[in-house]
């Protein structure tokens, strides 16, 4: 029935392989992969030491992507991300030294520790898929995917991302504590860093691009759009303080496509929308008094809308 099956099988093994590193977090891994497939960027928000970096690293290795990590600190400057031109005495001209942003998969670690200036340099690159320094525009490699991690904002010494910039991330997920069984295996198992180093890439940039293209062809029926619109409409009134933007609606459809594709289907079902909605809409929704308990809000939204 489905022409996407071979790719879907490959992606399924990707989920399993990453799942051997990050134990007991299959759903989150799936969401991260869907985010890549939907050509979006991922924000992981959690306490330190929950495996955010490990997830990014394992994902890059399995997908066969070139991986750079940028540790965001309070004194990070835009040039540290984008690159800088240095005068070459021998050739007597300026030579551009590309910054760490020139890679397929960027891990922007603890993005809320840097100043807004450095943050916006990263976010510009995410949005445009290109970098402009010293008047010259340089394209970033394709695929280009950013995983930013963020410590919860209550922590000392952070610059929380403003809502407008949160909106640039297709999804925001939290990893959360592993359950007891997974934690036991983690504690008993071998070093994760070494395991990642020995992992075989299952895909390459070209096949990932092909998969992204296939995802954009997953069929979205009128009936499904009715459902998405009903969800958006509900979020814009009543008990929600800030509703979903048109960009959020688009993000919801794209992410649902990727989720359906991962499930080996060629059409999007309401279940796909429901699966991705907490991750896609969580960081964009606000309660009536401005509070943001993402998951509860998303579940409330889903429960309050009947599937048309």
């Amino acid at each position, binding site marked *: 029935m489905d022409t996407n099956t071979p790719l879907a099988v490959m992606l399924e093994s990707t989920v399993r392989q990453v799942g051997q590193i990050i134990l007991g977090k299959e759903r989150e891994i799936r969401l991260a992969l869907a985010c890549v497939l939907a050509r979006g960027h991922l924000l992981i928000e959690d306490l330190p030491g929950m495996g955010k970096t490990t997830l990014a690293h394992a994902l890059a290795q399995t997908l066969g992507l070139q991986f750079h990590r940028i540790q965001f600190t309070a004194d990070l400057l835009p040039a540290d991300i984008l690159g800088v031109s240095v005068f070459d005495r021998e050739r007597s001209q300026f030579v551009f030294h590309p910054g760490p942003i020139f890679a397929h998969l960027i891990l922007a670690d603890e993005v809320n520790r840097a100043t807004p200036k450095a943050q916006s340099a990263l976010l510009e690159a995410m949005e445009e898929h290109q970098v402009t320094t010293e008047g010259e525009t340089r394209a970033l490699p394709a695929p280009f995917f950013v995983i930013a991690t963020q410590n919860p904002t209550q922590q000392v010494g952070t610059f929380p991302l403003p809502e407008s910039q949160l909106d640039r991330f297709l999804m925001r997920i939290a990893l959360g504590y592993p359950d007891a069984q997974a934690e036991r295996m983690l504690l008993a198992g071998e070093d994760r860093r070494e395991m990642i180093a020995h992992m075989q890439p299952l895909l390459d940039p070209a096949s990932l691009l092909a998969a992204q293209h296939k995802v954009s062809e997953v069929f979205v*029926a009128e009936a*499904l759009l009715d459902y998405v619109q009903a969800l958006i409409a509900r979020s814009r009134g009543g008990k929600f303080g800030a509703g979903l933007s048109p960009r959020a609606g688009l993000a919801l459809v794209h992410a649902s496509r990727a989720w359906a594709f991962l499930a080996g289907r060629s059409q*999007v079902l309401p*279940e796909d929308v*429901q699966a991705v909605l907490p991750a896609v809409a969580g960081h964009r929704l606000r309660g009536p008094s401005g509070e943001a308990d993402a998951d509860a809000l998303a579940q409330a939204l889903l429960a309050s*809308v*009947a*599937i048309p």
Partner: protein
Amino acid sequence: MPSRASFPPLPAGHWLFAGITLVLAPHALHLPPWLSAIALAMIAWRWAAAAGRLPLPGKWILVLLLAGSAAGILFEYRTLFGRDAGVAMLTLMLALKLLEMRSYRDAMLTVFLGYFLVITNFFYTQDIPLAVYLFAVVLVLTGALIALNHPASARRWRAPLQLSALLLAQAVPVMLLLFVLFPRLGGPLWGLPSDAFSAKSGLSETIAPGSISELVQSDAIAFRAQFEGAPPMPSSLYWRALVLESFDGRTWSRLRGRHGPEPTLETTGTPIAYSLTIEPHDKPWIFALEVPDPQALPPDSFLTRSLQLMANTPMQRLTRLNLSAYLDHRVAADATLPQLGHALQLPEQGNPQARELALRLRSEAGNDAEVVARALALFREQGYSYTLTPPLLGENSIDEFLFATRSGFCEHYASAFTFLMRAAGVPARIVAGYQGGEFNPAGGYFIVRQSDAHAWSEVWLDGRGWVRVDPTAAVSASRIQNGIASALAAGEPLPFLLRTDIAWLKQLRQQWDAVSTYWDLWVLGFDQEQQIGLFARLGLGIVSWRELVWGLAIGLGAVLGLIAAFTLWPGRRPAPDKVQALYLRFCAKLEKAGLARMPSEGPLDFAQRIRSLRPELADDADALVQRYVELRYGAHASGDMLKSFAAQVRRFKA
């Protein structure tokens, strides 16, 4: 360098190759057989290549095929231009294009070439069956277009056909509007190549023994005639075409130049009004009843001195003319014998026996009228017979006919009679035309066929002018009164259509002829005159082309707007639609069984919950939900799926 054909994908290929085959099929009737065979072979080759059974030919094979076939066409037609050779070249090119088709662009080009070849079929005939057939071809070609552009839909053969039919149905009002309102020019919009008229049959400009009896074996229609009042007796329906006044001993032909005085015309009674619908015959003469009213001649026509009605240009299109005729008349009664010398001309030599007979008639009779009467009596009484297959005649054809063979067709009698008259000093001439016709009660008109072709004589009698004398009537009176089929013995080579005595078949044929006459008149013959007449009858007066263009623009806008409104109107979508209604019935059945779906529960989640709560229902429910998902959220929902879904819901028991 041979290569595998990866394009087009096979479903689209089936559509395309079927469409091309269908559009070329009618051309096989007039293309040389070898060319039809080559074209068919090339299509079959390409078809097999699309199925992966054969490689596509390399470039050099294509070049050889092209050169060889083009040379064949050149040899066959001696040209590459004109209608026949042009169509042959187009056929060849289309078949060759198939063999080098490798991309989407090539395939689109092929489809459009196919559309063009649809039009070329009308170069040969424009009748209703062909038009219906070509509609079907356009349906298939449009199906090919759909299958090429939407390969997913072509997996079921019915889907492109349905869409194609829908598209064409939407195009029909536009077509009708364009047909009625598109401004017509005075003449045809473009000329057909001259060889398009080569095969028309009809009266020729000369009459020799055998020329009409050959024509009579064709049942092709020459023209149709409709009288405004009651039609005259069949025996007075002499449709006059040509007057032949020059004789060389064997062949009668038209006399060039003007001869004799301008004829005076005395008429009595009221004229009979009638209309002729003349099939194209590529000659200028008009088959008018005697004698046409000189004050009411059709436009672009004139009367010659021998009272032939001629059009200014050869009739190459179906032409409808309104005429009127005075059946009671005297023509050139005041002429004098010296003025009619050309009607007495005979060759110096030949046919001595006939000349002798003429002199004897002359000496026995008192006046010209008696000469005529005695000659007719001769034909009547001396064992002459009327046959389509007379023996061949030699040099002195009149002598041999009169004294040896004594059997012949109308041209033999007219020729012999006119010869006798001239030899006896009575001015005489031959008239060629048609006599009688079949009355079609379904349409209220006469059908005159080539088989009604006839030749008779006119003699000039002092005081009475030119008088029609039909020597054939003396031999076979029933030819004139009842038509040719009754006058000939069984076994004569008459066309089947004239022979048939089966009443219902005849009736069917007449009804069909009435329908196709309306088609000819109102569809094919819808010219500027008809268009102006139509609007005048609708009370719109004389409509200028500017108004027509405005009407066209407004009409097209309205039609397109209506179609758009009909298809895009949001209210047209049933909510909840049929699929959803069925699904809700399924949910209602489960709810009764205590398993209610939550409003925000998706179908797969619901199916999973059914599996965990009521495992015995799970298989049915899974299949049902799977079908529901395909129908409601899938890209390829179809009516068949809906039917089986409805059945599943009906059967489901919780």
